[in-house]
């Protein structure tokens, strides 16, 4: 029986100066790299496939399969790009991971690049996290100095260069083809697929794009074996993942657990819902995953379990809201976010998210009629699935799901002539008197 929590990537976060190379190596770090350099690249891909690792950036695509799509007979250079643009509202796992343990990412980058036969890799970090960028820059520099990067790594004949690239503020660049546009020095607008990046990605060359946590999981798979990894988790969602609890729980934080843990267990570990309050709604994996309620406390938090409940596991960004929170206000704020972050390329998203804000803002103010709810849902139907990327699908998720579970609350705004909630009651400092 696997333990409730299984720290692997987070296991050194309580170690002083864990971000430095000496600390990382003193705990066995870069041992997996030495092993990997003695393996055939294809057997690394096979091990990652066999482990069952699925993308930790939200979509859950099998990582090893993604790697195997790289056409090795293509004469162009191959590239690895790490998506460290963590921006999905509620998601806060990659940032502390890179701050505390940047070398596990760097080691993962080297092994993964070796597997797909890339000699150049990029770590695209959102620009708004200065100290994280410092730590990753420093880790890459240390890895060069130790001979883990550069020419003829540890006498293997394998060369790899890594560039740490800072973004400049654009949620959409978390979408992999928009990220590639940003990395090519262009406006971050998603590309039409196919061709997929595995065939024509960065500079129209074969490219693998993986989330930070996916790549950081690779060294442990190589070190301990794919069966070890697959011994955790559930049938189709193998391994461990970092679950991020935020909002109205007593002790918000990060919990690294096998996939399939439930929200009930996690809330319990976080000390319960804040005292005197009850769970109202939550996101399983960021704001783009439909809201769930207290009916869903016992679903296994794996790809299938959350999918079966009508939402998505996403990034395991569990934003917890208690009964003091107005769901209409929450949905409106997220909608304003999507409107702001729509890149403007596709009309249904660019215009549609603007209209969603118009209708939702009126409802939140208590202006309009119940028919506007139908109008809103009709707009959602005309936006979802009609754009190049999934931003618009994410934009409609909070609206559709909040109307599904809390229609009465929307109506209450109309009958009340405005929001019936006191926003001060839901703040962190509501009980401490700091809001005077």
């Amino acid at each position, binding site marked *: 029986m*696997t*333990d*409730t929590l*299984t*720290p*692997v990537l*987070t296991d050194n976060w309580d170690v002083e*100066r864990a971000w*430095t190379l000496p600390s990382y190596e003193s705990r066995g770090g870069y041992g997996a790299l030495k092993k990997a350099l003695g393996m*055939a690249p294809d*057997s690394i891909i*096979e091990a990652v496939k066999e482990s069952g690792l699925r993308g930790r950036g939200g979509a859950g695509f099998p990582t090893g399969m993604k790697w195997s799509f790289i056409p090795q007979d293509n004469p162009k250079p191959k590239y690895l790009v790490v998506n460290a643009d963590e921006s999905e*509202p509620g*998601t*806060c796992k990659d*940032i*502390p991971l890179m*701050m*505390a343990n940047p070398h596990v990412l760097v080691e993962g980058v080297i092994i993964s690049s070796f597997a797909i036969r890339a000699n150049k890799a990029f770590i695209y970090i959102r*620009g*708004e996290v200065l*100290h994280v960028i*410092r*730590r990753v820059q*420093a880790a890459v520099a240390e890895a060069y100095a130790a001979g883990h990067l550069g020419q003829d790594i540890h006498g293997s004949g394998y060369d790899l260069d890594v*560039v740490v*690239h*800072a973004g*400049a*503020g654009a949620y959409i660049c978390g979408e992999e083809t928009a990220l590639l546009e940003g990395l*090519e*020095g*262009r*406006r971050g607008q998603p590309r039409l697929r196919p061709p997929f990046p595995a065939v024509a990605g960065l500079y129209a060359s074969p490219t693998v794009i993986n989330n930070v946590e996916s790549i950081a999981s690779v060294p442990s798979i*190589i070190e301990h*074996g794919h*069966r070890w990894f697959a011994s*955790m988790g559930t049938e189709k969602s193998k391994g*461990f993942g970092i*679950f991020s609890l*935020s*909002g109205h729980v007593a*002790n*918000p*934080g*990060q*919990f690294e657990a096998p996939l399939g843990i439930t929200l009930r267990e996690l809330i319990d*570990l976080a000390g319960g819902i804040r005292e005197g309050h009850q769970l109202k709604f939550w996101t399983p994996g960021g*704001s783009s995953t439909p809201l769930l309620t207290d009916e869903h406390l016992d679903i296994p938090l794996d790809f299938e379990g959350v999918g079966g409940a009508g939402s998505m596991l996403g990034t395991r960004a569990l*934003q917890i809201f208690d009964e003091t*929170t107005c769901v209409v206000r929450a949905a409106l*704020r*997220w909608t304003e*976010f999507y409107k*702001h972050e729509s890149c403007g390329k596709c009309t249904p998203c660019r215009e549609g998210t603007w209209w969603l804000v118009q209708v939702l803002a009126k409802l939140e103010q208590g202006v309009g009629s119940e028919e506007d709810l139908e109008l809103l849902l009709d707009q959602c139907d005309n936006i979802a699935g009609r754009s190049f990327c999934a931003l618009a699908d994410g934009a409609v998720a909070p609206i559709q799901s909040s109307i599904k579970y809390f229609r009465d609350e929307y109506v209450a705004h109309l009958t009340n002539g405005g929001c019936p909630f006191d*926003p001060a009651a*839901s*703040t*962190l*400092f509501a009980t401490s008197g700091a809001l005077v």
Partner: protein
Amino acid sequence: MTQANDRAVDDKTYAELQQIAARYPEPRSGLLPMLHLVQSAHGRITPEGIEACADILGISAADVSGVATFYTMYKRRPVGDYHVGVCTNTLCAVMGGDAIFSRLKDHLDVGNDETTADGKVTLEHIECNAACDYAPVMTVNWEFMDNMTPEKATRLVDDLRSGAEVRSTRGPRIVTWRQAERVLAGFPDGLADEGPTAGPASLVGLGIARENDWKAPDSSPGLVTGAGAPSSTSESAEEKQ
């Protein structure tokens, strides 16, 4: 056409812009960090900075402008010494971000994306900055300021304006916005070793695991080399133990 001296791209900056472009297989990939360097040198995106980028990359100034206007971290108006961000995405807003932002607008007498008259503080409401377990979250020059309240926020901006030492809750002493932009351009400032490994919220789960002696399974030989493992991978796994 004359250029103000403080806005012309000096030789050192021009050379550094070229260095950034040279990091990449195709120089244009350097454009985002190059624009960060322009902000570091000029305090904003200047027409002269745009021209220099265009010149180095062999693309039009309109192309560079198109990129500079797409990303929210690039500013066309001068930014203060301290860019103060308040997260008002849903979770932080609900947890108090809205109250903090409103208090700061009053306290500083500025609107969103505006700078105080003394040129010290630019206030902006920001989107989710990936620190939700520390909500409500603020940033100063993109360093984390965790678990904020309206009171702490007003004290913070007062300290910044008076020149008192301010430290990130998970990082070093706050540098100026222009110094921060230089790091984003890929020129490290040597401060990576400041601050803790992780903040308290990041360690909640790990602490519980330690208390209960919860661990990931051992990679016992039975687990990694069980019958039926593909030969190539089981062979590598056997090396371990």
